[in-house]
């Protein structure tokens, strides 16, 4: 499986975009399929914690307004569950790549990510729910894909709790299992961050 990941990565390209659809093609009621990590109420003092790799730095604590201050992008695409079902859905939010560039994250130098300088990039982004009940690891190439969003809107409305309010990951180049809901913490690492479904026997990469 890890060999398959190597094969897949040699062909992976940010110019290979997920096919998009018209807004009216999107499901009016997007399917909800998992509650791991969001079984408790949303913390009232929710903030997005972003760990700085060097232990001495304090983590960034960001509000939803900070994310909304970044350029907003919308995508209507076919969300694909690892179980095999798929549904056209309409999400809105900030590009994860814009977020990393704006806050100068994901690199060892402390500069914004420069795709040409891969040595400076951490290999993985880890994300966890506030209760740490669900967690994923994403390879940096997929995290920087232009269609990967920190999403706060579904069908033009704020995301509801079952869909991962207030902020969730939408990563069209992965199966749904990597699209973590209710992001509590983001961190960067060269080793694979722990991953909920990979621990349960699924392939880690699951790139589409």
């Amino acid at each position: 499986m890890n060999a398959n990941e190597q094969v897949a990565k040699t062909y992976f390209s940010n110019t290979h975009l997920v096919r998009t659809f018209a807004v009216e093609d999107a499901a009016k009621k997007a399917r909800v399929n998992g509650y791991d990590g969001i079984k408790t109420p949303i913390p009232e003092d929710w903030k997005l914690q972003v760990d700085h790799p060097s232990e001495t730095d304090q983590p960034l604590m960001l509000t939803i307004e900070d994310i909304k201050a970044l350029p907003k992008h919308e995508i209507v695409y076919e969300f694909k569950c690892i179980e095999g079902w798929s549904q056209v859905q309409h999400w809105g939010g900030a590009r994860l790549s814009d977020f990393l560039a704006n806050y100068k994250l994901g690199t060892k130098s402390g500069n914004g990510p420069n795709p040409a300088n891969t040595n400076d990039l951490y290999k993985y982004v880890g994300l966890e729910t506030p209760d740490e009940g669900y967690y994923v690891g994403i390879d940096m190439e997929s995290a920087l894909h232009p269609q990967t969003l920190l999403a706060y809107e579904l069908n033009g409305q704020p995301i509801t709790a079952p869909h991962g309010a207030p902020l969730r990951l939408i990563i069209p180049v992965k199966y749904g299992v990597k699209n973590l809901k209710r992001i509590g913490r983001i961190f960067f690492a060269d080793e694979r961050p722990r991953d909920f479904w990979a621990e349960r026997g699924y392939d880690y990469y699951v790139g589409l």
Partner: protein
Amino acid sequence: MKRIVHKHPLAIRWFHWINFPVLFVMIWSGLLIYWAYDPYKIQIGDYTLLSFFPDGFYKFLHVPRRLAEGMAWHWVFMWLFMLNGLLYVGYTFISGEWRHLVPNRNSFREAIQVTLYDLGLRKTQPPFIKYNGAQKIAYFSIMLMGVGSVLTGFAIYKPTQFAWLTSLLGGYKAARLEHFVLTVGYVLFFFVHIGQVIRAGWQNFQSMVTGFEVIKSHDPEPPHAWAYG
């Protein structure tokens, strides 16, 4: 008087017997994957003629809750399936064996005659070399189906990286259905194939293992491979 004819080259026999367990693993692991989302059925109006698949079928085969395992097997054996298939097609081209496998303009008429003969509606079997028309069509189709499985497979395995392929096949959902239908085709082929091999008898079967078939030349109705040597 008995005569021994060389029927199947060694390479073809290897490809055949490697393909058998590999395709078996692909179908079995595919079933483990399909279980996780199994909407397909054949319906006439509101009446469900056939559901893929009933719970009892899954339970009997210990299918449920093994999606991760299914994917792991599927994504390893797909490489063996493709490699074996590629080598097979390459070999038939280089060796000239393709001439026995690719149907020609007579094959379809011949196939109808063979089918009538097999069903007992016709007294004589039309003459042929190595494979009759029905066999040519069946074996050639199964090869094309293999190509189809690889293409539809990649369309659902990497629908973003191969977005052009997924679109060409009618989209992600369509490609998954096509992939499934082709698999049903293999299973149907398998049953007919086994039936025909049993009918053709031991000599024919063992020729796929040893390469040779013993033919009694006074046999009024040679089963196979008369002029082929």
